[in-house]
Every structure is written in C-alpha cells, then in structure tokens.
C-alpha cells in the first residue's frame, strides 16, 4: 500500500474509503460514522480521575470552536458524546465537531489553514506532529502544558516525548493504540494450546500444532496493512530502528530489519500463511475462522466484539531479543490561525485539558489512555482488552518524529510488500527501499531544515 498517511484501520471499507478519499476525494458520505452502536458507551463512566490540574479556565465572551478529527469509525460516537458533555458543562464555549476520513483530513487541514479557514482544535497522530509543526499547521503548546501542570510524570515517557518537535511541544497525548496479538480460542483448544505464545519458540510450536490440528493456514501474513506495523514491531524487537539518531539515514535495512522481515516472509515460505495475501484478507479470514493468529491494532477489539467469534487478544509475543510493539497515539492540537483570537486559543486549551481528563470514556472506544492516572484507575483495569494491551505501554515504538516521515514509512511499506509477495529477498527489498528513503531523508532535511 502506497499510502503514507497514518491512520488506523477500521474493518474493511473504512480503509478503502480513506484511500479513496485521500486520492479521489469521493465517497465521503458513504463512509460516515453510521452503523456503529454506542451501546458500549453505557453506564456513563464519566468520572475521570482528577489530575489536580485545574489551571485552565475560560471566562471570556461566548466563543465557538471548530474541532476536526478523523474518528469515522466506532470511535466517533464516543468522541461526539464527550464533546456534547463538554458543551453542556461549559456554557460559554460551543465546540462543533467535524469528522472526515483521516486520509482526507491530513490533506484538508493544511489547505484550510493556508486559506485562513482552518479549524481551531484538532486531533493528529503522533507521527504527523513533526510534519505539521514544520509546515506551520499547528502551534506549540508548551504554555498549555505548563498552565495545566502537565509533565512527563503524567504520561509514559515515550508517549510524552513523542509530542515534541525541535524542543517545543505540539501535541497533548490523548491515547496510545498499540498492536495486539489476536487469537482464535476455538482453534487453540482444538490444537491443545493452553495459552497464547510469548516467545518465538512457543509461537513456532503453536503454529505447528495448529497446522497439525487441521488449520491449513494458522497465521496469514498480509502483504499490505498492517504488515509494516508488524515489521516495525519486529524491527524494534531485533534491536533496529527505522532511521538513525538525527533522521538523516534510513536504518530499516540493517541486520535487525532483515531478520524481522525474514521471519515474516518465512511464515509464507513454511506454509503457515497463504501466498499473496491482499489487503484485509487476513482480518476477514480471522473473522471467518480461517486464520488463527492475527496481529492488528487495538481498535479491532470494538469490531470483534460485535462478532460471535471465540477470540481474545494479548500482548505481542517476543520474537527478537527484546520486547517492542508498534503503537500510534492521538494527540490534541491547536491549529495556526491567520488572525489568532486569544479567547479561542484559551477556550481551546480548556477543551483540550477537559477531553484529556475524560480519557477513560475514550478508552472504551478501544484505546489506551495516555494519562497515567487514568490508565492506572480501577475503571480502566475493568476494560479487559484495553488493559491487557496497555501492558505494552513501556515498550511501545512509535514511528520516528521527523517532518516528512510518512515518505519514509511508505518506502518501508513497499519494501515489506515486495518481500512478502516473494518478488525480492528481504535484504534486497529493504535495501532498495532504504536507498530511496535515504534520498528522501536528505531532501526532507533540507526542506524542513531539521
């Protein structure tokens, strides 16, 4: 998949439509947030753990804020409900939420900001912060963090640090969404496996048992999304990285990358996966009981809950030398305005603070809250799948925070694609991708001056 825009996958059509709208600008209405039931929101659950950060207040005249995001899936209704509640609690601030596909969003927001008609507040994925900061789309929020008395202690370090570009903070983390290891419990029982594998050997052994138990293909290896997220996780596990320290060279083709990709390609070679798995087929096969193991984002929990499948999810097994799991993170941001309005900026900060405090509600949409207090609350521990995947919090790997990193991710994605499809050896494919990525990095470094 050549898309370099960060977005998480909702089952099937969502991604398709995002790609479409990213390019063709059509089909928007079709993909809207229909269908998803808000019943899981249930029981209010709104009493967020207080952080004691009461620094933000807005007492000025009535203002109205445009809040744009890409929550078109099952997460949309949760966010909308939070916004509604915010509006009731803050009579002098009216927040209007506008939802569009992420792919569309990342093209439209800069264009709207350039035209002086951008939204006031928004949500951006952590790996897009640097790009949008460098491109003057969003503004630094250090003073907000200061007034709110937010600091590293309130968040997992990796999450907190990722919002910084050139020593200024551009995003207030709302959540993290890591990969997880989904498995079919019925298949496990059938094969006589009593717990999810946590090491490479156990993983291999489990696959063999599943195969002997008559599951022809127990672990479908996709050639597209989310293969590059798997690759990023494994790359971290083998001790590698996507780019070097100063973001000037691509390092994903080094030995750890080759090891990681070889492991993935071997799943196909050894017959655990069918050949040429196209986009979404792995997940559809999992839902249809044709696939036993599936690595995918935490957001899929919401979709799987609606099925009758006997499934569970846990942390990724450790295939390499250390633990690592790819994750994304939604961050709250404030857009740059041609004529900044201090009232709106202040109101926006109140909104951001409030939303980030309510993140237990947001967790129910299938996310791991970014704030430690919320993540450690009893309420969050009650969310079975989310709290299980939150165990990975200390070793999550984000895409690196350099402007234009999407270009590099796209090259990596294609390298994974070529190797999984058997067009090139892992090494050859990664090297081809890395040599293009090197050129892109040099060009980006010059362009964005980082």
């Amino acid at each position, binding site marked *: *998949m*050549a*898309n*370099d*825009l960060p977005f998480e996958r909702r089952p099937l*059509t969502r991604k*398709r*439509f995002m*790609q*479409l709208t*990213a*390019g*063709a600008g*059509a*089909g928007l209405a*079709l993909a809207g947030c229909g269908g998803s039931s808000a019943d899981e929101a249930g029981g209010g659950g709104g009493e967020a753990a207080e952080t004691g950060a009461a620094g933000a207040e807005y007492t000025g005249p009535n203002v109205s804020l445009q809040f744009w995001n890409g929550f078109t899936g099952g997460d949309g209704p949760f966010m909308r409900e939070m916004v509604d509640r915010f509006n009731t609690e803050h009579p002098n601030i009216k927040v209007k939420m506008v939802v569009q596909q992420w792919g569309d969003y*990342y*093209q439209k927001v*800069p*264009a709207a*900001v*350039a035209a002086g008609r951008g939204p006031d507040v928004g949500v951006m994925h952590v790996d897009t912060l640097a790009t949008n900061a460098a*491109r*003057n*789309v969003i503004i630094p929020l250090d003073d907000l963090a200061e007034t709110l008395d937010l600091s590293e202690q309130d968040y997992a370090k990796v999450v907190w640090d990722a919002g910084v570009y050139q020593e200024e903070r551009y995003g207030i983390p709302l959540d993290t969404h890591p990969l997880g290891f989904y498995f079919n419990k019925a298949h496990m029982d059938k094969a006589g496996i009593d717990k999810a594998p946590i090491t490479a050997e156990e993983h291999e052994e489990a696959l063999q048992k599943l195969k002997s138990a008559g599951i022809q293909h127990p672990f*479908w290896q996709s*050639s*597209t999304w989310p293969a590059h997220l798997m690759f990023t996780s494994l790359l971290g596990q083998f001790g590698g990285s996507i780019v070097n320290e100063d973001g000037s060279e691509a390092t994903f083709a080094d030995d750890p990358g080759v090891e990681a990709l070889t492991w993935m390609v071997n799943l196909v070679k050894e017959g655990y996966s*069918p*050949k*040429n*798995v*196209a*986009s979404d*087929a792995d997940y*559809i*096969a999992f839902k*249809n009981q*044709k696939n036993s193991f599936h690595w995918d984002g935490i957001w899929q929990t919401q979709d799987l809950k609606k099925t009758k499948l006997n499934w569970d999810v846990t942390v990724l097994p450790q295939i390499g030398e250390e633990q690592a799991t790819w994750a994304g993170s939604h961050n709250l941001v404030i857009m740059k305005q041609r004529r900044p309005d201090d009232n709106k900026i202040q109101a926006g900060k109140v909104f951001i603070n409030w939303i980030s405090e309510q993140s237990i509600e947001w967790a129910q949409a299938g996310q791991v809250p970014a704030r430690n207090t919320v993540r450690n609350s009893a309420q969050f521990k009650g969310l079975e799948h989310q709290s299980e995947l939150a165990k990975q919090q200390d070793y999550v790997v984000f895409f690196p925070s350099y402007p*234009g990193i*999407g*270009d590099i991710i*796209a090259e990596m994605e*294609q390298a994974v*694609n*070529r190797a999984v*499809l058997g*067009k*090139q050896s892992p090494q050859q494919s990664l090297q081809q991708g890395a040599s*293009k990525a090197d*050129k*892109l990095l040099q*060009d980006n470094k010059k*362009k964005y001056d980082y």
Partner: protein
Amino acid sequence: MAAAGPSSAEQAGGGRPLPPLARAARTRGTRSIGGAGITPYLFLLPYLALFTMFIALPAVYGFWVSLHNWDFQLPNKPWVGFQNYVDLFTPGSLTSRDFWQAMEATGKFTLFSVPLLVVLPLGVALILNQKFPGRNFFRAVYFAPYVLGVAVIGVLWTLLLDPNIGVVNYYVEKVGAQENIAWTNSLPWAWIALVAVTIWWTLGYNAVIYLAGLQDIPRELYEAAKVDGASRWGRFRNVTLPGLRPVLIFIVTITILASANMFGQSWLITQGAPGNETRTAIMLIAQEGLQSFRMGSAAAMSFVLATFLLMISLVNLFVFRERKS
C-alpha cells in the same frame, strides 16, 4: 460561398466589371463579416472565461510551481529553475526511477486497454443495433456499470478478486486450477484484472456512443450496397466503418486520454502492488504532490505527462486526418 469563387476568379482574370449578382454576394459577404462584430466572441466568452479560470491560469501557475521546490505551507519556496525536470531525466535522482516506472505502468495500461476498449464496444454496439426482443434491456445492462463510481467498483472488485478469499478464485478453483491466482498483487495478473475491470466498467459508455453513430448512418447506403451485391463484411467495411469515422476518432481520443489518466482502479484494487508495478503516473503525482507535499516535482511530472499526451493526441490526429484521394 458559391458566388465568391467565380467572383474572385474574375477579379484575378483582369479589370472586368463584376456581374451584379457576384458583386452583391461579395459585398454582402464582406459586410456580414464586419457586421458580426463582436457577437461571435461574446458567445465564446462564457466558455473562454471558464477555460481561462480553470485551465489556462492553473496551467500557467502549475508551470510556475514546477520551477520551485514548492510547498504551499512553507514560507520558503526555493527557486530551482528546471531542476525538477532535469531530475526526472537524471537516473539516480529522487524522482526519476519512480516516475518512469509509473510512466511505464501507464503506458502498459493504455496499450492493453485502448484496443480492447475501441473494438469490444463496437461489437457490442453492432449487436445492440440489431432488432431483437429485449434490446433495450440489454442496452441498459451494458451501460449500467458505467453509472457506478470508481469507489464502488474498486471496493467491489477488490473483494471479488482477492487472491485468497475472493469469489473469482473460488470458481477458478472449481474449474480445476491448482493454485490461487493472485489477481491483485502479482504480474501479469494484476494488469489483466485492471484491464478487465476497466473494460467491464466503461465498455457501456463507448458502446452507447458507437450506437448513436450507427444510427446516424443512412439506411439507404446499406440498401444500395446490398443491391450492388456487397457481403455483410463488405457492408461493414465500406459503409459502417467510414460512416463511423468521426465517432471512431472521438472514441480513440477519449479512450487514450482516459486510460492514460487511470488512477482509481490502481489506487483501490492493487494499491500499486506488487511493489509499485501498477502505480500509474497520476497516482504517483497525487502522492508526490498531496501526500509528500512536493508540489514542484509533482507539477513537473504533470507537465511531462501532459507533453506525452499531447504528442499522442497529435499522432492520433495525424493518423485519422482527412485523406484526399
């Protein structure tokens, strides 16, 4: 017009006075040109305004953009002259490899799809031009896919053609294939799939235009040919084809341009896979300009692509030019 011929001839012939009729025609003609004044231009104006605003000015602006490293969000848009173009023609540069791969992909798709999209709809139109029961139903059926948007057909065929879980392969296997065919992510199958889907999708449009052309050919010509003893093939070759000439030029031209601008099918069905093999030029340009925000080089790519299309259109016009025998 008819009067103008002799009159000018006479004029050339010497100082003889013009016959009254010819003179009248001549003066009338002169006056009518002068008298029209700006009226024709006024009629052209609305289109001219649209053309200027939405095609000419953006094209000029685009050319200006192509001479810079252009990102609309950055205050600094360094002037690079023709460097973006030079890069496209310099092996080993940031853009050349991807660009020519995409151009090759575009060329392949055009080459594979255009002949089929010119010939097959003609066959369909010839059949649908016969009289048989249910004719209108079939006319509608062949046209139906065309009303669907590329989003719909893209998602539809992605699922149908999926190598492992698609319906198409289910039947392929039923008829005895040993292995799944990777319709969406291996070669040459991805091309076959893209061309087939495109034909299924747009065949109806070309067929309808042919059909209109066929109905314009006077019946009498066929009858005359029959009387002269022309065979079915003879009637097709000597009556139908010449009668369709303008329609054929139109269809060849728009089909070439449409195929060279193919984007949605690759974007949705193959996502360029395997690797970048089925990524078309427009798809690359969209990514380069709108996702990587390298608008300068994206604009340069667009101009090179446009130059190619211009040349192809010129060749097309030359091939189909009115031959005076």
